[in-house]
């Protein structure tokens, strides 16, 4: 029975693998499963739905011997939506414009301090721990949203695809660690959002929206402005550092 069933399933896989449908559907299903596990576990921070989905997909692709480019052929349709989602951040930001104006100076200085800390600590710690030069350069823009970070990485001689992975890992670690840390600091919703957005871009922003509309809007603001700031600061800082 299985002797006949398995080749049949395999034949089907090979056929479907060639269409974008498979990568697209698997990404959605893996994420839904990740979300379901996260809800079922009572929102355990270590069961981050993005991390769970990535682990499931990597395991499946390795088990079936499917290459990443084949998978991405379908998954790119989801990846593409990062662009319009970034533009859409203007909407919650507009909703919170009054609160931002009220605290403009603290917001801007917090942002600048956080952005500098993210870059300097990423590059500095990698250097101190003896990481390779490619890793070090790919690490510099890791707190910025994926498409921007990949562009910066390419410009300074890092590996854009490695940067994409470091960006996601940064996002996941921020989503896991930051809310607990900020609660212990008794940070107000605006500071909480700003810290999440600066440290871990869109994944941090997604986490901030779960905490509340105000947290989410400030995280979105931080993510957008940090993308601008990091694009300017990284080449400047690396120029000094040599």
């Amino acid at each position, binding site marked *: 029975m299985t002797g006949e069933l398995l080749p049949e399933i395999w034949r089907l896989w090979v056929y479907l693998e060639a269409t974008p449908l498979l*990568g697209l559907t698997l990404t959605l299903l893996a*994420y839904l499963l990740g979300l379901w596990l996260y809800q079922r576990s009572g929102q355990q921070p270590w069961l981050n739905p993005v991390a769970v989905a990535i682990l499931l997909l990597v395991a499946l692709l390795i088990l079936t011997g499917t290459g990443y480019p084949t998978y991405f052929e379908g998954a790119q349709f989801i990846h593409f939506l990062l662009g319009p989602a970034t533009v859409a951040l203007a909407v919650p930001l507009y909703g919170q414009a009054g609160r931002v104006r009220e605290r403009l100076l603290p917001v801007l200085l917090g942002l600048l*301090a*956080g952005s500098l800390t993210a870059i300097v600590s990423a590059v500095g710690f990698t250097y101190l721990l003896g990481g390779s030069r490619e890793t070090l350069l790919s690490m510099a823009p890791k707190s910025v949203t994926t498409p921007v970070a990949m562009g910066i990485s390419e410009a300074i001689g890092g590996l854009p695809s490695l940067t994409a992975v470091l*960006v996601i890992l940064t996002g996941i670690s921020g989503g896991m660690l930051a809310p607990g840390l900020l609660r212990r600091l008794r940070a107000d919703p605006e*500071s909480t959002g700003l810290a999440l957005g600066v*440290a871990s871009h869109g994944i941090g922003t997604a986490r901030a929206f779960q905490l509340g509309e105000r947290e989410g809007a400030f995280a979105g603001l931080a993510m957008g402005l940090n993308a601008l700031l990091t694009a300017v600061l990284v*080449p400047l800082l690396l120029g000094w550092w040599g």
Partner: protein
Amino acid sequence: MLESLALLLGLQLLGEVLVQLTDIPVPGPVVGLVLLFLGLCWRGQVAPELATTSQTLLGNLGLLFVPAGTGVMLHARRLGEEGVVIVAVLLASTVATVLVTALVMRGLSPGRVR
């Protein structure tokens, strides 16, 4: 839904065009964000349709990072060799960034310290 999606994509496109024309070191979608924000300030309100579409996109933001994150499989060897360093750096840097950002913002907001 369709109109607001066209608006978001159109502004992203406009952003990309502006970046190409002016060489500003900013990604196209971020320019689109600024343009939409200015447009909303000018109109003075958010159309309910745009609010729904952006809520749908932003409510599922995590999903959009999954395809790029799965690219981790391309770097299996590097992660094997430098994985400990990479994870240590990411955790330390994230904690430092969160603390500095929140403390600076709170420190500069007198009367807000609770």
